[in-house]
């Protein structure tokens, strides 16, 4: 039994009360996932490091908001990291000139992004889960999660009705959820 081992959730809860050692354990357990997520979206190591640092200081500041009933500590901080990375991508896009914007928005061949990701995915499980998606579900999820695009932008880029994109994102994630057994705790 591992009853002596505290979970990442316990560490984050203790960190919310000012325990810096607990926060260090929380950092060690989640830094790879946080950095990996940010790097995947931003693709710039220097900017990614900056964001990772901001994310962990935000996590320290707002640790009291973590609610173990709503998910794991890893998901809590990775969600925060993904949001920040996506915000950077979007504000960079907003600041470019209109004609440059078209070039930025050019859709990459849809498989390339997830293939790159697959090279570094640690978990065979996730790789297997991704194969359970239909190609169009996978394309939509790639563009959203790794590309930082909104569902409206995806609909525009792919010239699809918004409802179709919403459905693909949701159905795709539901398949992944079932393949990964999330929520079967």
């Amino acid at each position, binding site marked *: 039994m591992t009853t002596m081992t505290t979970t990442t959730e316990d560490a984050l809860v203790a960190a919310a009360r000012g325990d810096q050692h607990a926060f260090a354990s929380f950092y060690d357990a989640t830094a790879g996932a946080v950095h990996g*997520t940010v790097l995947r979206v931003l693709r710039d190591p220097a900017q990614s490091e900056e964001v990772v*640092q901001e994310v962990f200081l935000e996590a*320290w500041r707002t640790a009291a*908001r973590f609610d173990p009933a709503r998910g794991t500590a890893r998901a809590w901080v990775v969600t925060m990291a993904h949001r920040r990375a996506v915000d950077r991508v979007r504000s960079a896009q907003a600041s470019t000139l209109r004609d440059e914007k078209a070039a930025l928005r050019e859709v990459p061949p849809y498989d390339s992004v997830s293939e790159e990701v697959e090279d570094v995915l640690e978990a065979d499980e996730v790789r297997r889960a991704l194969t359970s998606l239909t190609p169009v579900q996978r394309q939509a999820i790639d563009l959203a*999660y790794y590309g930082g695009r909104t569902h409206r932008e995806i609909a525009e880029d792919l010239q699809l009705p918004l409802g179709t994109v919403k459905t693909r994102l*949701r159905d*795709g994630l539901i398949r992944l*959820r079932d393949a*990964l057994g999330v929520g079967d705790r």
Partner: protein
Amino acid sequence: MNARDERRDDPLLAGAWALDALDDDERAAFEDRLATHPDERADADALRETASRLAAGTPPPPRLRSAVLAALATTPQERPAADRPAPVVDLRTERARRRGPSRWSALVAAAGIVVGAVGVGVGVGVANRSGDTVVSAQQVARQRITDLLATPGARVSTVAATDGGTATLVQADGRIGVVTSGLPEPGSGRDYQLWLADGDALTSAGMLHVTSAGGSAVVVPAGAATGVGISVEPARGSKQPTTTPVVFTPLTV
């Protein structure tokens, strides 16, 4: 595009929400919905948990760990909900938030540290060394920094000062906002001075008038600055730094 497609609190948006594929207004509308639909919230949380598993683990460089852990001591924490007083809200900020549609809330979230500093400065009313005019000037500066954050392409970075405390820089629109927090007492008759570096040349960008909590806020024109420094100087200021800067950082372009 039909009406159903446009519903902002459509339960079908759970996937887009979990993947961060909503804009700020849509996200707010959907989260309002989740707050009143506990059954849907559990499903949406599971999708978010799923999305977070898509991240490939890539360890960051070890120096990042030291930097983060070193900054904890000077980064104030929110108190747990149970013993947290009713939040103090800056009305202008709150109005701006409600007004939407804007990127405001996301950008502010992205600059949580600065907003934390705004909370301390505006909400609690920090005791200051130099009189009320300084604090109100700083309130104005904090508001201008908050506005800077709303500028598309705004860049935010936080630097740990060598003797404790932090400086957060917001760059946008040819201006630089500087917010300090937790800088140590500079000593009697002394204050922190802000410097802009252009190559090897340093130009004073004025005194920070730090409060007793080591806080300050200013917005200055960026000019051709390639770096920013902060040093302890006599309160009337120096032409060139006379002490080793506690903060010296290149600006990101």
